[in-house]
């Protein structure tokens, strides 16, 4: 059903929702969680390579953000502030995951269940990308995702990661080179 003319859906801004949370409105925080769930979830899933770990990191980040909301100096940039918490949380979680040596096998069933060649190709490509991404060193993977997938400027990446611009550029460059290498190897297997 089409929306009547002259009626626009108006959503509360981040700043307004943060203000309401600070006065005790937990429902407003639910709205912020809903707003950023998928956006931040994508980073966590790619960074950690495991959906369960990603959701755990995401939930923990939302809770940490709520408990330290008074430290969010610019409520209009709540999303960027929350991003920083998630990036740090993924580093911790990523270290734990590395110790467990968990490998990426998520799409194997989907591959076997694919009915069309084109669909199978897409699933296979997705698996190859995930495996290549998982082989990157965490700091390379982090830099690559922030720069190319989340489309952040280097200045913002500096704020999120604590690394310098030149170091980040080097990490992105190495990540690109290694992804190319890994995926070419996969092509010839």
């Amino acid at each position, binding site marked *: 059903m089409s929306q009547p003319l002259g009626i626009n859906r108006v*959503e*509360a801004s981040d700043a307004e*929702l943060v203000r*309401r949370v*600070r*006065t*005790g*409105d*937990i*429902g*407003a*925080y*639910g*709205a912020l*969680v*809903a*707003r950023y*769930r*998928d956006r931040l*979830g*994508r980073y966590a*899933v*790619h960074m950690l390579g495991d959906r369960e770990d*990603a*959701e755990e990191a*995401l*939930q923990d980040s*939302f*809770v940490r953000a*709520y*408990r*330290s*909301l*008074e430290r969010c100096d610019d409520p209009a940039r709540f999303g960027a502030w929350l991003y920083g918490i998630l990036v740090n949380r993924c580093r911790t979680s990523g270290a734990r995951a590395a110790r467990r040596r968990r490998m990426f096998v998520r799409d194997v069933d989907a591959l076997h269940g694919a009915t069309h060649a084109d669909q199978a190709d897409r699933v296979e*490509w*997705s698996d190859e*990308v995930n495996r*290549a*991404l998982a082989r990157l060193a965490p700091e390379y993977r982090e830099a690559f*995702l922030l720069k*190319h*997938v989340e489309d952040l400027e280097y200045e913002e990446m500096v704020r999120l990661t604590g690394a310098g611009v030149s170091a980040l550029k080097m990490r992105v460059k190495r990540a*690109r080179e290694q*992804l*190319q290498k890994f*995926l*070419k190897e996969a*092509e010839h297997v």
Partner: protein
Amino acid sequence: MFDRDDDIVERVVRQLRQPVSIDPALDARVLKQIADGPARPVAAPRSRFQWRRWPWLAAAAVLGAILVARPWTAGNDTAASSAFQFVLVAPQASTVALVGDFNDWDPARSPMQTAQGVWATTVPLAPGRYRYAFLVNGVEWRADPGAPRARDDEFGTPSSVITVGGNGS
């Protein structure tokens, strides 16, 4: 398959930029953990009242309700009241009101405010036992699935029970 190295990276980026859908039930889990956990300072308590302690939680579910209590003292009154925030996650609802013994079951007195499907309102409650329900879209009575159901509801509609102790819990 690949003509240039950059093509590989571009394809990787396109693949990784595909939207990722996270289980919406995560929202309720976050809110429950928040309400279960330690206090976060509240910036602007209402006048007349002073915050003393932080919330406890009754229950949470994806389409259920979350009940948060924030005890306070009421000015110079000797009897302590407690502020209870009721939260209902109901993305499809167009209006939700909290009704109960504490507001004479009048939907106009406790309309709930929404932010992306999460409805909330706060009411002060003195110690006692109260029946309550959510009135969705003005017609649908919904009990709080995370709270005890009222067994003595003479009106035949679903309702829940909250008991406020003398210490505001």
